[in-house]
């Protein structure tokens, strides 16, 4: 049966994966199949957006999480023999992909940011970052299927085409899970999408206390920009929401201006700002790695420099 298969949790992720899946399927000369686990009325939507087949998964019990589908998906892949399987590089997606890959005894390219098909070797070439972002690694997979997880918003979503037809197949229900979801505490998404911001002021651990973020915000206002942060500010201190964390395990941003305040510039952070047009930084340590990665750097104490900068920008 072969094909490019995609397994995502929601519509947004599915459409994005459909886009790249259709491109690759055309190069390979095969079909695209999409798994659908909720909102079953979306079948035609997925077909319109490029799926040749929709594999419908029955609903989960309330205490089950999406990983309950792993045995069903793995079995399906054993008989269906896909060329390539794509999942989103979300927390659940990454775990599911690794577990499916283990069951199929195949290779998985984690957090793949570019995918092409190589006519010569007849295999997908997958690109990812390694060594915290210091290196770009290109891999191919010698076993079937090749698998990759793709960070959300790497590709544009697919758009619906007219007059599309596809097959629909119902899959068996998953077995009961040993692992039980007792409770879900959903949070409100309060943070803005920093991947769209034109100007970003990034708060790092050089900032001493939560209250001091107020003047980082003032600086962002003076610049007409948004506040973002490094991973420790979001995850260790919980001063800002995780969505605002930039880097390897956070967001990849592409602003006109990135201004890091008290950010050391470890490679895992820098990899998230590589596409900024201008990088600027304030750090009191003249040897901080951020200065080797910045266009403009002020060597000085942020508590001295930031008020001066705000005043200067208001001129």
């Amino acid at each position: 049966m072969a094909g490019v298969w995609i397994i995502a949790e929601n519509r947004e992720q599915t459409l994005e994966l459909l886009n790249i899946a259709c491109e690759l399927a055309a190069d390979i000369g095969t079909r695209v199949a999409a798994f659908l686990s909720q909102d079953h009325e979306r079948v035609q939507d997925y077909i319109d957006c490029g799926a040749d087949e929709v594999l419908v998964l029955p609903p989960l019990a309330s205490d089950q999480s999406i990983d309950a589908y792993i045995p069903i998906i793995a079995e399906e892949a054993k008989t269906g023999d896909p060329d390539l399987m794509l999942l989103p590089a979300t927390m659940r997606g990454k775990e599911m992909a690794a577990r499916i890959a283990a069951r199929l005894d195949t290779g998985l390219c984690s957090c793949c940011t570019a995918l092409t098909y190589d006519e010569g070797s007849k295999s997908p070439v997958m690109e990812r970052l390694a060594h915290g972002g210091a290196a770009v690694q290109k891999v191919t997979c010698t076993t079937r299927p090749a698998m990759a997880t793709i960070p959300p918003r790497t590709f544009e979503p697919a758009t619906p085409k007219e007059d599309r037809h596809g097959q629909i197949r119902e899959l068996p229900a998953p077995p009961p899970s040993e692992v039980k979801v007792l409770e879900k505490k959903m949070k409100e998404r309060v943070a803005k999408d920093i991947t769209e911001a034109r100007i970003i002021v990034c708060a790092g651990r050089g900032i001493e206390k939560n209250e001091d973020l107020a003047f980082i915000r003032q600086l962002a206002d003076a610049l007409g920009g948004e506040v973002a942060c490094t991973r420790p500010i979001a995850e260790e201190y919980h001063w800002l929401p995780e969505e605002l964390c930039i880097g390897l395990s956070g967001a990849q941003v592409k602003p006109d201006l990135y201004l890091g305040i008290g950010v050391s510039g470890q490679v895992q952070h820098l990899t998230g700002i590589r596409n900024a047009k201008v990088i600027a930084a304030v750090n009191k340590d003249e040897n901080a790695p951020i200065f080797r990665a910045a266009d403009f750097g002020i060597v000085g104490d942020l508590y001295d420099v930031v008020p001066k900068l705000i005043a200067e920008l208001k001129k």
Partner: protein
Amino acid sequence: MPNIIACFKWVVDEAYIRRTASGELDFSSVDYKIGEYDRNAIEEAVRLKDNLGGSAIALTVGVPEATKGVKDALSRGCDQSCFITDTTYRDLEPSQTAAILAEVIRSRIQNYDLIICGEGSSDLYAQQVGPRLAEKLGIPCISFVQKVSLEEGKLTVERRVEEGIEIIAAPLPALVTVLPDINVPRIPGVKDTLMASRKPMIMIKKDDLAPIGESHLRTASLTAARMERTCERFGTDAAEITRFAESLRKKGVVG
């Protein structure tokens, strides 16, 4: 009383990787360390054991030089270590590492309740070894965990997902991968290092194990990521701050 296994990887410290003029990666002056997030895995195992009794075993697969990492793990509070080593274990891919760990856990450790892995290694950050290992052992896997509690043969954890937090229960034995904010890893002191040298260290050689499969992924290329910037420096007096602001204006990035 639980027996806990903490898995870790001995990795190149990425801060020492240089880029040559021709764009190659230069590893000539690198140093090694226990992966950043694997320290959280070790710390969590040791804390659970300190609270509940039982034992914490540090487990790693790596090249012979990684013996330094084994000692480091023991000085961080693990009771004993199990080190599977060979000179060919330098570039193992996640499927191979997981296969080796699974075989050793099955054949040599057997009696365990919880396996703790870091969220991802500092070098490859593929985030696969934990989940793959759980599948190989046929035990429950919960990844991206920010809080663990162990009670009477049952595990309850807080798992982070993009939309919030899930509270999850699973029977033991199980495997979790932990996030960096689960704890603050201790910094071993001189006394810890001295104590570490007296703890049991099991060493397993490649020949003691079944042959591992070929790697699935073939690296077609590994190149240094480009990051070329002008690196202009500024001071903090009024004139310098003005010059800095002017530079941003000239680039057209601020109004």
